[in-house]
């Protein structure tokens, strides 16, 4: 019985782990808040969490959950496998059970590329939202909110396009570039993407913090705070 449970629920989830409980609680509160207090659209601004629809949120969430950058972070800071690299501070020990990415739940990490495809499909909507916010009155109106939405769209794009799975698709899985048609160009793109990929962890966090900021900004606007400014109107 114990074995059967462990096959599906890895030891990482069965340990007493307040860090994990706190993480689950925060996610649960956020999800409930999204449904109870939705701010989907306001003065032509569309909240990125609801774009194109909140139903895509699970895919976006799974893209982040299976992302190599966040994997490192939660394996360290939530599961403490290991908490830190210096050997006495690792909080990992022979006594703790560990299954890595071999158990049923963690095998989902291997599906990262599918969530990547979903994320790429969703990306254009964020740029469309910028466009909508600029022209929602019929005239061209440049407001602070549009600039914030534009920065958000760019950050999300950089995050998605710096993905390790994409790196593999572009060239990581290729052994001989010069054997391919257009191989030199492909190697160049691979090198450029590899540069971006080296910043994947920073981009993952900056884009996450920024998207939360955008959501809070729009909620602030909805609450009537005077935090939007119009810079330019062209009729």
């Amino acid at each position, binding site marked *: 019985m114990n074995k059967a449970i462990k096959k599906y629920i890895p030891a990482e989830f069965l340990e007493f782990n307040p860090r994990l409980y706190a993480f689950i609680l925060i996610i649960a509160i956020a999800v409930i808040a999204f449904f109870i207090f939705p701010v989907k659209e306001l003065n032509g601004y569309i909240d990125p969490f609801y774009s194109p629809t909140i139903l895509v949120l699970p895919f976006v969430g799974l893209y982040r959950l299976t992302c*190599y950058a966040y*994997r*490192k972070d939660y*394996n*360290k800071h939530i599961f403490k*496998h*290991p908490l830190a*690299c*210096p*050997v*006495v*501070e*690792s909080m*990992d*020990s*022979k006594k*703790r059970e*560990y*299954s*890595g*990415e*071999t158990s049923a739940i963690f095998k989902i990490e*291997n*599906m990262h*590329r599918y969530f990547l495809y979903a994320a790429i499909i969703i990306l254009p909507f964020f740029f469309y939202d910028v466009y909508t916010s600029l022209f929602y009155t019929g005239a061209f109106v440049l407001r602070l909110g549009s600039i914030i939405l534009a920065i958000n769209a760019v950050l999300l794009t950089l995050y998605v396009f710096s993905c*390790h*799975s994409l*790196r*593999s698709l572009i060239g*990581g*899985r290729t*052994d*001989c*570039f*010069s*054997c391919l048609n257009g*191989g*030199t160009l492909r*190697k160049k793109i691979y090198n450029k993407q590899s540069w971006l*990929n*080296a910043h994947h962890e920073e981009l993952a966090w900056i884009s996450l913090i920024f998207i939360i900021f955008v959501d809070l900004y729009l909620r602030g606007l909805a609450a009537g705070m005077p935090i939007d400014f119009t810079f330019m109107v062209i009729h």
Partner: protein
Amino acid sequence: MHSDTVKLKIFRKDHGEKSPGRHDEFEVPVTEGMSVLDAVNYVVENIDSTISVRWNCKAAHCGSCAAEINNYPRLMCKTRIDDIGAEITVNPMGAFPHVKDLVTDLSGNFEIDRNIPEFKPKKGIELPWNIKEQDVTRAQEFRKCIECFLCMDVCHVIRNHSSKYIGPRHIIKAAALDMHPLDTVDRSVSLMNDKGLSLCNVTKCCQEVCPEHIKITDNAIIPEKERAIDKMYDPALMLFDKLKAIGKSGSR
């Protein structure tokens, strides 16, 4: 650093000794630019010549003097005393069988190496082999490895959980062969299925400690995982690769 001496605690344990070992303390006069290896050698030459320590080039090229300095895996010759404070503890690498004092038995690594499928070149290529630079730069990064095995020592999987995982040093060896433009073997699936690659949870400690700054996780482990996923979990790519292979054989 202001003091003229440094307190050095060196791990002591004889070969086969049953006790958990002890630390002997020594006061060592500090000289300009002194490394931890210099300090240990000072003790061996002037205070206690029975201490066993392995070193060779003193220039971070041979990888022999790997140890845990204040619990962090480093090369003794590359760690300066003035970078780490007045009290320094030197332990042997804990992930490997102990031999004596600071010396550990690393022979298991060469056994693992032998079990990685060797380089098998494509058939019928003209000699001398003509390889383009753009095709070898990735594998070249892994050639910088000095086999210090610090990455193996820091890896929490090897230290605590499973001897099934062959470890970061050997994944880069396999990756260097896999990424060779003339090689015909694919090692990724066997790394995943038989050599414990899926036990690595990409926490990048190996990459953090590598004295050669090889991006072990980003450039070898993750690409090998992705290559294995191509063949094990991605039906779309599997079909694409099959069609490509059929297309190739058809056009021949």
